[in-house]
């Protein structure tokens, strides 16, 4: 086994998803290594979210393969795993941060319970311990622990997003999927959240796949970029390389459409 293969976490091969006759995404292949953050950018309808849903096993692709380096058995095809194994993977080794916190949080239970849920799902049965780690994680995402017993709907959008991030990280996943994690937040909150995410990814050695239409987010967080259009990858490479010297006409258009300050 080469060094490259040892560090491999996720491998996507010729992934294709059709919605009836409409193409969601087509022939997508890439590798993700440990500790690496991959950005997927493109305009609305370019297949970013379809791709993310397929590789996070929330949707079954029409063709192609997604392999993940499971802790127990090494590289395994996700869709060959049993549903129980797949759901276990989602609850423990993976995280999924939704654009809208309503999709990722239980709005009817407190912030503490939201974070504790994943621990309880993997068998934590001591209230004191659950509460302690919920509180520790809230501190880590710079959330005021005085409010850990309040319901998420009483929080601002930025606070909800922090709770959602804490909820995902509490089981110490190795891979986190993020769908527009800073969408819908105002610019100053976005900046603080981005700082936080960058710090967490660094500290924990997380791998992440981030879908965004915001090139600033992509530049700040991701090491590598994939540019998508019409369900296909038009360009990929190191983030700086793609953003500073785009080769494909569409990437050039995307980069030039950012307002220059």
């Amino acid at each position: 086994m080469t060094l490259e293969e040892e560090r491999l976490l996720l491998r996507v091969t010729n992934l294709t998803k059709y919605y009836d006759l409409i193409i969601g995404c087509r022939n997508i292949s890439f590798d993700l290594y440990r500790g690496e953050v991959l950005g997927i950018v493109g305009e609305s309808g370019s297949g970013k979210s379809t791709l993310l849903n397929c590789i996070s096993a929330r949707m079954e692709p029409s063709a192609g393969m997604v392999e993940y380096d499971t802790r127990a058995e090494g590289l395994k095809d996700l869709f060959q795993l049993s549903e129980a194994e797949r759901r276990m993977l989602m609850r423990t080794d993976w995280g999924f941060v939704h654009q809208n916190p309503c999709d990722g949080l239980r709005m009817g239970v407190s912030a503490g319970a939201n974070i504790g849920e994943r621990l309880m799902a993997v068998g934590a049965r001591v209230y004191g311990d659950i509460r302690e780690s919920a509180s520790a994680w809230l501190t880590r995402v710079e959330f005021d622990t005085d409010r850990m017993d309040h319901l998420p709907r009483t929080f601002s959008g930025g606070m909800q997003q922090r709770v959602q991030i804490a909820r995902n990280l509490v089981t110490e996943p190795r891979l986190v999927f993020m769908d527009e994690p800073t969408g819908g937040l105002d610019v100053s909150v976005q900046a603080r959240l981005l700082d936080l995410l960058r710090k967490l990814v660094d500290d924990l050695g997380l791998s992440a796949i981030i879908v965004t239409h915001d090139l600033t987010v992509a530049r700040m967080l991701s090491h590598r970029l994939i540019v998508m259009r019409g369900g296909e990858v038009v360009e990929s490479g190191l983030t700086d390389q793609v953003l500073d010297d785009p080769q494909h006409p569409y990437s050039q258009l995307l980069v030039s459409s950012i307002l220059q300050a």
Partner: protein
Amino acid sequence: MNEQTIPASGTPASGKTGYNFAYLDEQTKRMIRRTILKAVSIPGYQVPFGSREMPLPYGWGTGGIQVTASVIGPDDTLKVIDQGADDTTNAVSIRRFFARTAGVATTDETGEATVIQTRHRIPEEPLKHGQILVYQVPIPEPLRWLEPRESETRKMHALQEYGVMYVRLYEDISKYGHISTAYDYPVIVNSRYLMRPSPIPKFDNPKMDNNPALQLFGAGREKRIYAVPPYTSVKSLDFKDYPFEIQKWEEDCALCGAENSFLDEIIIDDQGGRMFVCSDSDYCQKRREAGYRGKDPSAPRGNELLDDAAESA
């Protein structure tokens, strides 16, 4: 309904022509018995069944009645309780229903009954081998308030993903400092299925564990039957540092002086006066007949309460 009385079904209803024994037609009973067999084989698992229209509204015990009608035979003795008492409306009407349509003997005494249909309580007197306890269940799905999708809750049962149930207990503790869920307290049956024990107080939860009687649960509106076979483990969910506890009262029963039975609080005047009495009327009466007395000197000695109720009815 099948208007023909099928002789194979046993004694026809006493004096009532036009009804099959125990109201339901034989095909329906076979279907429900098959469902019950499956439920007994998979303790705690909710088995769907073709619930029928019954001559009483949903929520009044249509599930329990269908289960009782399917398991009862001409030699059985039926007891029906509602909130522990034999003389409440629901109990009286269901008991009368089976006395008329099946002609079976009825009783108030827990020890003499072979089939007991119940709402909200398990009798205080320990059940015996050979008895059947039938619960009326309003909402069978324990995960319902946490996960509204039926497809998802079934998957959660199949994969034993019950962590979310603890979220509810966690919320209780973080809000009130203790687990405040007082009735319909979730249990794990036979170390496998999460089950909602119908709205019995958690006081009764320990009685379900390793009980010699067969326990059947029928939900008519939701069309589900589930069961706890005799001598099956039933464990209430809890945290290691917040163990499961049952309710306690500061007073004993005012009538019979019982220290460890489930007590109802009864308002006796408009001056704030109140008394605590056993919710299980048969148990309380038996104790009074045996000479036990509570602190209320005017307490009736035996059957008077029931007799009064019968007279005024």
